């Protein structure tokens, strides 16, 4: 579902974020993406969502080589990839309901179905009843969960998340990871970048570790 073939990424300012990364994530598989700060985790996810393009090498997502996706086709491509961001990326001037509904509005879903699905998604992240609140009226953890609801509402075959639990307390972090696992169980391919070594240990899923822009073996855990 997600295949990296000898991907090299240099940013316009000359910084080389990925040296040569190759991996393959099968359809319905789940993986943690780990590595120190600045290792290149977010870069990998940006390449999958076509927020950046590789300098060299191939990135194949959902059977499509991203190199073949022209700029006009990017929106349709992105609708196949659910994303959860470190900084939530919510619309501050729209209520939670509208934020979560956004992908469906873009896809042109009818009002009735939209309403049903928004409620279901908010229920899944435990935020039913907050529809009319605005993002800034929520705590950081609550905002994070709104972002997750938005990422899954259009039922994308691929879901990527960049440190989705960084702002959550341990209980909530566990809950969110369980949510990702449940989605994975119904066939969604999931990739989660995280620092949370304790969570990684708890879930017996595949781990892709990056160090200085290259795949590497796992380091010894730093945990207490």
């Amino acid at each position, binding site marked *: *579902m997600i295949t990296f073939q000898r991907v090299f990424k240099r940013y316009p300012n000359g910084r080389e974020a990925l040296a040569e990364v190759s991996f393959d994530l*099968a*359809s*319905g598989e789940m993986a943690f993406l780990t590595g120190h700060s600045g290792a290149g985790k*977010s870069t990998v996810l*940006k390449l999958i*969502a076509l*927020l950046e393009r590789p300098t060299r090498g191939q990135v194949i997502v959902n*059977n499509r080589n991203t190199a073949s996706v022209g700029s*006009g086709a990017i*929106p*349709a*491509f*992105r*609708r196949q990839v659910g*994303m959860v*961001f470190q900084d939530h*990326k*919510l*619309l*501050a*001037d729209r209520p939670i309901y509208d934020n979560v509904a*956004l*992908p469906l*509005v*873009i*896809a*042109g*879903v*009818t*009002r009735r179905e939209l309403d049903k699905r928004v409620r279901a998604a908010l229920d899944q992240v435990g935020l039913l009843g907050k529809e009319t609140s605005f993002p800034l009226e929520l705590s950081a953890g609550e905002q994070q969960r709104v972002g997750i609801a*938005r990422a899954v509402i*259009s*039922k994308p*075959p691929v879901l990527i998340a*960049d440190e989705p639990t960084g702002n959550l307390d341990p209980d909530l972090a566990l809950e969110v990871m369980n949510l990702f696992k449940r989605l994975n*169980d*119904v*066939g*969604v391919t999931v990739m989660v970048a995280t620092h949370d070594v304790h969570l990684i240990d708890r879930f017996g899923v595949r781990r892709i570790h990056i160090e200085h822009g290259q795949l590497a073996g796992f380091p010894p855990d730093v945990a207490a």
Partner: protein
Amino acid sequence: MSRPNPAKVAYASGRRSPLAALSTWVERHVQSLVSSLGKLVRQPFASALTIGVIGLGLALPACLHLVVVNASAVTAGIEKTVQLSVYLKQPMTAEQARKVRQGIDARDDVLDAQLVTPAEGLKEFEEMSGFGEALKALDDNPLPYAITIRPAPLFDSPEAIESLSDELETLPEVEIVQVDTEWVRRLDAILGALEQVVLLAAGLLGLGVVVIVGNTIRLDINGRREEIEVIKLVGGSNAFVRRPFLYSGTWYGLGGGLLAWILVSAAVGFLAGPIEKVASLYASSFRLQGLDPDGILALVAGGALLGWVGSWVTATYHLRRIEPRA
């Protein structure tokens, strides 16, 4: 990717029928239309500023246009065609004078030539000068034969008239040639120049409206950069992001057009009194002319159109450049 997962197949469901797609499309547009209007109404001060600027920009050429229209109406009441008066030498017989008239009348650059006998001339002079009875006392009519000439339509430019006048003066029977209604021509020249100004101003200000709307939309886009990035991030196309801006721009233009109409009407109302009072002193039945229905339509529809154009150009240009940074 490899083995089909039954759960997954159910999960990624949902083709829609063409009819449902159409109804969704209509629904979307109606919603954009209403919500963009709602957004303007919710920021009354900000919207008023933009609409005010556009309204002024549209009102100005409209006002200038009315100035020209009305000034033309004033001068229209006055005989506008230039007229030449040819005074013949004395002494001259009626027969000779008629011949001269025929000669002039035959010219290509003369529409018609009319002979004015000394008797007719005296009568006219009496009426014109107000000397009235005084002249009745004259024993003898001192006036010469005269011929009044209207130049042919294609030969009424100042240059043509000058050459006509010069040529006539070389005739042996002619004493002097006078070109009349000089001041009307002078006024016309001013109006002509003013009309050029109006055209120039209308062009510039039409461009100005596009620029104003474009600028507003550009800054609006800038102000909603984050929102746009987020929408693009979750898969919104350029067209999707642009739609509300097009509606806003059109609303701005429409509002500006309506405001311009109000401004122009107010200006006409404000000036009608004094101007008509002045006119009435000269027994002129002049009435200040406002916008006719065509003009109003042009103003309002033109405003909306310019608004749409301005927002389309700007949104298309600027939205392409906003790419999500994550």
